[in-house]
């Protein structure tokens, strides 16, 4: 397949029929302000320079590309791990948050608000707030507060206020709704730091741009590592889809096959239908009456019933494939990577590995293939879950 361009043929904020800006009138000026500010900042070498400096000095970028030698031998495919788990704060979320926090400061906003699922985006936002001197309020579903107590404490330790959301399914979906409700009340002062490639325009595009550092680095690293320069497959887990969007951005114009792995119970791209939620049109799990269904996953970061609009578009184009992995497969993959490579991935990231483990040696992922897997985060936060769920044999 020759390289294809998947953007630039549609109006800003649209990915085919997906995306858009489905927000109340009250939020239109705030969205427009963010879009305008991002557009200016992204074209400003000083802004880019400040972000690059922070990503280097504070986050530890570039992150390594690690050949998974023993796992590769076991599976019969060459697995390369893009190590976002080694970033400061432990997940790729920090890439986006530092970009948005710098933008918020450039816009003269005085505080940050954020939603969080597993707590990684909340921790990253709390970290950026501490670093740049901006107060942070994080909205988190009650179920996630219970299962990610460690991250709740980290956010508070960093000086953030954590608001427990008790409505609906009490997970990421409801935390996002509550953050949007709060944003309306203080849109002049508060900057809403969205954690994934979701939300009204410009968020899906902007978050992808802040995350594309993952894909851009990985593409260069693959060129140095692989005789064919690009891997045959590029695999990442997908909740809203930010680490996948950032990874895919580096490879969408290559011949690599793109695979997004969703949680079985949170598979908006694989099993969703067209709908509108949280400001954007995309694919969402919903019932026959148009009510959004609750997602269920052991990985709080994948517990979202929809998927970013660009993923829906890439799916329709056939440019990326979206598959699922179960809770059990993800846990087994996390343990397997820990034992084979000495790397404990986040349960979210383990979904991407789980698909590789399942598909390796089948026509889906033939023996001898080269596979880039983005490890979006590290598994320290999941140890409590693993104590309860993992069978160590």
């Amino acid at each position, binding site marked *: 397949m020759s390289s294809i361009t998947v953007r630039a043929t549609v109006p800003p904020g649209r990915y085919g029929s997906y995306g858009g800006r*489905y927000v*109340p009138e*009250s939020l*239109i000026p705030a969205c427009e302000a963010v879009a305008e500010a991002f557009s200016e900042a992204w074209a400003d070498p000083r802004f880019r320079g400040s972000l690059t400096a922070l990503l280097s000095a504070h986050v530890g970028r570039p992150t390594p590309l690690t050949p998974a030698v023993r796992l590769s031998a076991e599976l019969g495919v060459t697995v390369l791990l893009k190590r976002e788990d080694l970033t400061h704060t432990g997940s790729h979320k920090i890439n986006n948050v530092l970009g948005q926090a710098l933008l918020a400061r450039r816009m003269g906003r005085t505080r940050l608000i954020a939603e969080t699922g597993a707590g990684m985006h909340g921790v990253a936002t709390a970290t950026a707030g501490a670093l740049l001197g901006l107060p942070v309020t994080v909205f988190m579903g009650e179920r996630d507060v219970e299962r990610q107590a460690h991250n709740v404490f980290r956010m508070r330790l960093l000086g953030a206020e954590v608001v427990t959301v008790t409505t609906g399914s009490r997970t990421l979906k409801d935390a996002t709704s509550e953050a*949007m409700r709060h944003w309306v009340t203080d849109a002049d002062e508060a900057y809403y730091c969205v954690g994934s490639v979701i939300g009204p325009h410009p968020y899906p595009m902007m978050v992808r741009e802040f995350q594309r550092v993952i894909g851009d680095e990985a593409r260069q690293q693959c060129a140095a590592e692989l005789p064919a320069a690009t891997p045959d497959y590029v695999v990442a887990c997908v909740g809203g889809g930010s680490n996948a969007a950032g990874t895919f951005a580096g490879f969408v114009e290559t011949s690599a096959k793109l695979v997004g792995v969703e949680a079985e119970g949170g598979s908006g791209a694989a099993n969703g239908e067209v709908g*509108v939620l949280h400001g954007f049109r995309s694919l969402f799990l919903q019932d026959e009456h148009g*009510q959004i269904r609750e997602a269920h996953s052991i990985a709080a970061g994948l517990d979202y019933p929809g998927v970013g609009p660009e993923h829906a578009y890439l799916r329709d184009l056939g440019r990326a494939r979206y598959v699922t992995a179960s809770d059990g497969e993800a846990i087994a993959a996390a343990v397997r990577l820990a034992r084979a490579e000495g790397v404990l991935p986040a349960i979210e990231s383990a979904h991407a590995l789980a698909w590789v483990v399942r598909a390796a040696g089948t026509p889906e992922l033939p023996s001898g293939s080269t596979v880039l897997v983005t490890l979006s985060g590290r598994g320290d936060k999941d140890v409590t879950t693993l104590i309860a769920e993992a069978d160590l044999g």
Partner: protein
Amino acid sequence: MKLLMPYITGGIVPGWTAFLSAFAHAGADMIEVGLPFSDPTVDGPTIQEASDAALARGTTPASVLADLAGTRVGIPLVASTYANIALRPGFGDALAAAGVSGLIVPDLPLDELAGLDVPGVQVSLLASPATPDDRLAEIGRRSQGFVYAVSVMGTTGERDRLAPSAVLLAARLKQVTDLPVLVGFGISTPQQAAEAAAAADGVIVGAAVMRRILDGANPAEVGAFVASLRAALSPVAPVR
């Protein structure tokens, strides 16, 4: 005479359409009927609770519209719901079949209206205190039936006092449209209704109605509240 449009979450309790008749008898000019959605991001706690309660007892947008089709109220009914419901195929036909004359979709701004297909139904747009002048004029031009002036930067829900932004926005809207301007979000008492209506053509009252229904008030009791709003808006006794 000032217009009064109370709101009810469709399907909130068994026999909920009795509230529609009570509102009409109490002097309402129109009624806004909410088709409950699982994720009401523009609503505050009261209408969130009402939506959840309605959904929990098996209410669907279709069941609300079916209830409306079998009810004669004698005043116009305006449906309100979220974009995910309103943009579903067949929604326009279902609205028309139910005899609904208007529609409000709070998360479907001007820029996304093209996706909405509801022939024969007047789509009323919302304007907010943050809406700039040029956009306000466009909303005035493209709105149908009336313009919904969102009183405050926030979600629906009762408030202690009318926000100063409500009067300001109503006055700005009156300069750009000949349609009636109705003020909504947070109007909780007859006095607030009178204050808001002084600068506008009428008011929309939602959470204050729904809190009473959630607390167990019957149609006559909520009708009495609506009558008190009516009395505050005009000295004329409601027609019975």
